[in-house]
């Protein structure tokens, strides 16, 4: 060995050994499929992406369309649907025998709080970044989404914990807040959203679009109107609904067969369906409520549920909503089984594989705002005239091809509004059940209905659903919904 190798080699070795203690060596890039949370709210595109994920989950986890949706679950639980299926969740819901492990009713809770984590992260992240071009849009959307999620959480579970930050250690010890506080929070968030959002619709690049898949100021207003209605703040409900209706260039009542189509002028905000690999862009409701002609509803999970007789019978003769939004399937007699006729909600009709969305999962539409304004005005005893409830009722009835309402007294007008809500908003995100409950009509109706559906006795605590047992175990301050 030469002199060089004799002296160089050991030095080289020492250098190599020194490498081992080097901290820099451990600076490894994160996996390519993840990015650190701090960088998520760094630019407009990623802010939109973080919110996209929330919209996607609201669509794809099936909470607003399909067999695990508010439509389906509240429809079965209340008086809108009849179950023929053997699915144990369908059965439990139909006979009003849900529990923390029965009926699948706790999944809304878990999913909505999981979305809230994303929304709270977004609010924190977007607020901190002043370099965003569409900061107000993204922040407004996030506040709107928080309001929306709390609206459905409190609608389903009553008192719920208000979680406003992503700090999981603090959140894990929160208790339920009274429903009134939840409504206050919703109103605060929606007012924030109103102040941040514009009247135009924006796409995920922040550009103005005619597509109504992301909320604008009117979406926040519509939800605010609904929230005031639920809190019996009639004056504010009227103001908010009125401001939506006043924007008659953007929002109109089109023909019934186009109400749920994408870009329908009635839609204030709707979720754009993503569909599945098998059925791209399809709204799941279109699939589950339209069996092949002549199929007996039953065993398979999808076509097992029909409209209830009471709902079907509520339609007045000549109601175009019945002809446009109800699918009638006649199953011919076979053997000893006589012919039978089944009625399915048919608001969503586009079934199959599409290359672009055809229908929107409509979350807020103008007709509801007319009915909110009508109810608010009726409660304020503004019945007739240009700012009267009757006018609003008739606007909705006229589109349905019906004669003006005959109600004139306040109570009759209020009943007429409830009737109108029932047939206008049937099988849409559980409006009927929530209306029954907020108007105090629930217990009376369910006490008679539940035994007829094959269930045990109705108890008024059953108006709200139970939450997951593990959540109560993991957060000792959290209590189960009363009655479960």
């Amino acid at each position: 060995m030469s002199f060089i190798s004799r002296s160089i080699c050991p030095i080289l070795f020492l250098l190599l050994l020194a490498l081992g203690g080097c901290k820099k060596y451990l600076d490894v890039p994160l996996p390519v499929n993840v990015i650190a949370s701090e960088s998520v709210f760094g630019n407009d595109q990623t802010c939109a992406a973080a919110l996209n994920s929330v919209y996607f989950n609201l669509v794809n986890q099936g909470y607003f369309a399909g067999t695990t949706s508010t439509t389906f679950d509240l429809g079965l639980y209340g008086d809108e649907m009849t179950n023929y299926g053997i699915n144990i969740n369908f059965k439990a819901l139909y006979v009003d025998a849900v529990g923390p492990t029965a009926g699948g009713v706790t999944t809304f809770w878990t999913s909505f709080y999981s979305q809230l984590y994303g929304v709270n992260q977004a609010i924190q992240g977007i607020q901190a970044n002043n370099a965003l071009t569409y900061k107000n849009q993204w922040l407004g959307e996030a506040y709107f989404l928080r309001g929306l999620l709390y609206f459905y959480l409190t609608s389903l579970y009553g008192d719920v914990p208000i979680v406003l930050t992503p700090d999981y250690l603090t959140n894990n010890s929160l208790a339920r807040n009274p429903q009134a506080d939840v409504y206050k929070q919703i109103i605060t968030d929606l007012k924030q959203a109103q102040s941040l959002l514009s009247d135009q619709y924006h796409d995920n690049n922040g550009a103005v679009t005619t597509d109504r898949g992301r909320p604008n100021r009117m979406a926040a207003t519509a939800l605010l109107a609904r929230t005031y209605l639920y809190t019996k703040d009639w004056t504010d409900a009227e103001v908010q609904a009125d401001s939506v209706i006043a924007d008659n260039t953007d929002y109109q009542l089109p023909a019934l067969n186009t109400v749920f189509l994408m870009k329908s002028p009635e839609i204030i905000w709707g979720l754009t369906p993503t569909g599945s690999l098998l059925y791209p862009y399809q709204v799941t409701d279109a699939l589950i409520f339209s069996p092949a002609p002549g199929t007996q509803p039953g065993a398979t999970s999808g076509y097992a549920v029909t409209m209830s007789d009471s709902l079907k019978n509520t339609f007045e003769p000549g109601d175009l909503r019945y002809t446009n939004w109800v699918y009638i399937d006649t199953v011919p007699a076979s053997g000893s089984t006589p012919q039978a006729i089944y009625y399915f909600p048919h608001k969503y009709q586009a079934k199959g594989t599409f290359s672009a969305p055809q229908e929107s999962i409509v979350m807020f539409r103008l007709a509801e705002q007319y009915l909110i304004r009508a109810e608010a005005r009726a409660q304020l005893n503004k019945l007739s005239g240009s700012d009267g409830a009757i006018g609003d009722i008739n606007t909705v009835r006229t589109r349905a091809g019906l004669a003006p309402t005959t109600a004139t007294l306040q109570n009759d007008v209020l009943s007429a509004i409830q009737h109108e809500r029932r047939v206008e908003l049937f099988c849409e995100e559980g409006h009927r059940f929530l209306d029954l409950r907020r108007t105090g009509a629930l217990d009376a109706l369910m006490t008679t209905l539940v035994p007829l559906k094959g269930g045990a006795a109705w108890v008024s605590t059953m108006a709200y659903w139970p939450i997951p047992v593990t959540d109560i175990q993991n957060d000792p301050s959290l209590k189960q919904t009363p009655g479960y």
Partner: protein
Amino acid sequence: MLLLCLCVSATVSAQEINLSAKNESLEKVFGQLEKQSGYTFFYKIELIRTLPKVSVDIKHASLIKALELALKDQPTLSWSIVKKTVVISPRAETAPASTPNNKSTLIMVTGRVVDRDGQGIPNVSISLKGAQYAWKTNPDGAFTSMIMDDPRSQGKALTLVFSSIGYASKEVPLTGKEQKLIITLREQVNTLDEVQMTAYSNTSKRFNVGDITTVNADEIARNPVPNVLQALEGRVPGMQIQTQTGEANGSFHVQIRSVNTLSAGAYNPQFLNTGGQPLYIVDGVEYPADGLLPEPNGVTGHSFNLYGNALNFLDPSQFESINILKGPDATALYGSRGAFGVILITTKKAKAGNPRFSLNVVHGFSNLSSHPKLMNTQEYLQMRHEAFANNNATPGASDYDLNGTWDTTKNTDWEHYFLGGHAPTTRFNASYSGGTANSSYLISANYSSIGNIQFSKGAVKAGGMNFSMNTSTINRQLTFGLTGSYSTNVDNMSPVDFSNSAGVTAAPDAPDLVLPTGKLNWNIPYANPLQALFILFKNTTNTLVSNANLTWMPVKGLSFILSGGYSLISAKEFDATPIEYFNPATFNTSQTISLIKWYTIRTLSFDPRVQYDKILFGNGHLQAIVGTTLRDKLQETSAIQGNGIANDELLLSPANATQANRADVYTTLPTRYTGPFASINFRWADKYIVELNGRHDGDSRFGPGHQFGNFWSVAGGWIISEESWFKPVTKVVDFLKIKGSVGHTGANSLSPYQYISTYSLNSNSYEGGIGLSASNLANPYLHWETDKNSEIGVNIGFLKEAINIEGIFYFNHMGDQLTSQPLSGITGFSSFFYNTPAKIYTHGLELTIFTHNIRKKNFTWDTKINFTAPRSKLTAYPGVNSLVSNANYIIGKPITGIKLYKYAGVDPTTGVYNFINAAGTKGEFTPILSPTQLDPIKDKTEFIDMAPKYYGGILNSFTLGNFSMDFLVSITNKNGPNYEGQESFPMGVEIQNFPADYAAKRWRKKGDITTVPKATTNFLAFLDQNNFINSTGAYTNATYARLQNLSLSYRFAPRLVHKMHLSGLTVYVAGQNLLTISKYGDLDPENMLPNAMPPLRIYTGGINVNF
């Protein structure tokens, strides 16, 4: 008396000699000349020791010239060169062969010393009995000796003694004047001197102060199995291996010592843990056999080989030895990576010697080993009718098995139909090796094919090559070694395991699955299980493992070593469901799926180190190693899925689907690890041993400030039998060592990057925009689990080492347990990772007894017994039992257990399960329906631990002449879930068959005392069954003894073999998993799974030829 032994070697051209010595002994001068010339010097040491020292100055001389110069002042010596040997002899006694002295006769003996495979053994010492001197065989085992028969020994036979470390010595009497001998030495490793591999060096059982078990190539080769883990089952104390499935390329459950971490999640012996797994090192580089392969086996949701194991891709024939390292001393140099044990795999290396070619061919078959015998049609129908009678019901329209839809005279043994095949197995490997002392090589190739015992298509075919080369400079200052292995495993077996209910437990009167037309019968109320045969499936896994090693030894004892390794597993799996897979009545084009997945796991490691060996003060032996490890691991996965491809040919590529029907994934998982280390081993007088190991570990899976940890171990050993005062008892106890070690390491069994909150881009796209969603909750405080380890051990050898016993007790405290802490859903997540202050204490006994029962010339019998009793208990867990996730934990009990209701048999009056609640009340407690019900927390009064209480193996080896036989019996004592405990419905509810012996015990009428409930058709019986599944009735003692391996071989006698121009020939038969004795019941007690094939029984025959 004089023995001349001349090693036969090829002549080498003259060397240039440079030697400058002043006042050096002749011994040293000869030593230098030997080193420089490559010639062997041959002399009596006494002859030259007394001679005066010499001074020489030789430059650019030939050997002859150098010898002349060196010996010019030595009148008493003469020299001669014979072949490559320099013979130094006293001038007076110089006796050329032609001139016998004192009527002495000269006997010339030539020959070769070979092992039982016919391979030459180098460096065998040959001596004449009664004489002092010994000579050695050349690298090929050959020797030539010239013996001068002294007149004084007239009348006595001359005897040559052949001896070598690792072989039984042999005495050969000389008979004629000239002899040609072939001497076969039988391997006989003194167990104490068996080489054991340590982290960066090696040791022997004698001096090892840690816990290492070595399994060598011979033992591995006796097992006709594709995965080396199967060959280790039952052979290693402190390591439990459980085959999870009989499917080829299946997975294994490996546990070293006791389960001591919560990071692996809830313990279940039936399923694989991804945490708490040992580290696998193949030739110095990490090999990812410690977790599931990143391959979920396709779109059809089948996990037929239960996620596989990376060792399936390395042919066991290429392994030289496997060392299992346990405990603080042995694993300390692996730092945190070795916290759960280390499995060190060494492949066969190049060895010097004449070129030799070895060929091994095995053929055989495997079939189903244990299987429940199910009811035949008559018994089955009787049970179903009884079920209806019990419920006062009559068969309805969907009871096809009873209502006349199916032919009730038909009787199909579905198990035989689906799993009754004999799967052919072929293995083949060939190797070629040889070389000189300075340069040697090995190349080998292997091929194997494993069929399927199922009614199925396809096979697993694997093949590969590996090589090893070593080269060094003449003076051996610089040596370089390179090893590499590349193999391909192609699995195109139908991805299905029919062991589940859709196949095997169908009603025995169910209709044929294939119509006479050859088409599948779709007119059955369930999906035709044979549809799986139409799945297009092919998994190709390529594996490369390579290692390079450069050693520079500038002065004796000091080595600088650079070693680097690279391992790469890359796999592609194609999985598609064509039109034929689906029921044509409900088929929709969009149902077809085509999926291709790729993954690679690449590990690079680099271990530069300096090693220093020095003899100190005559009696001390010091070995010090200082080095560092850098490891970089990257896992990548990608996939393309396409749906709705209507044409079967287009289905071969998922990219043929339309854009909207396609989904792609690409993920990476990079991790890095670094750690400088130091190790000092000091041995004094071969009596006292002290070893210190230390390591500074850094791991990228933790966040800033928590990445580094310092870990260490201290070990000591005392070989008492070396003490002079012990001598009186050495006749009985000839070896006694006590050893002990303590260590502190860390463990890090959690998925990386939990310290940082991340968002992942996923398919959550909305209106054409990408979606990012939070993927985890961050815990920046995550840090190492702390592992305080200690062990004490003893090695005793009795009666000339006829009995060797090694016993080790280990104790371990594991704290700061990394575990996932459940959270309330209102946080948005269900859990996050954190270091819980929970503590687990584990301890246990490992015992190995090795006895040479009989050691006769033609008959030997050895027994090796290993025994392990692992214990563990949870010593602290704040908030235990407050959550579902820790409901089964009890302070003071193992974490491997489960809390259960107390099962009280079947109610003699109702035929329904009875349980006893916490209050001691006996009842049915049917959920929902009964007035009182069992509380899932309070009423679970019983506790059953599922970890083995003890396990071990007994290996007996016999040789009789040229025959040898080995058999290994493994024994495991444990509890496990039984067949009925894994059924969701009791008998009768579904159209499903049950084991006949179980069904025969069912309750039939009032007063029957039994443990099997009545047959029922009531759907709600699942409620009772659910209580049963959570009761002691669902668990049974699964203790079993298994004839794990039996091998019988015959080696043809060397003389006969040589006549055939071979150097060795062996034929053998071997069997695996031949017999199981257990009271466990209907399932296999090893995998305990009703829906996965049990480990198969394998029979093979083979031939091994050496040229």
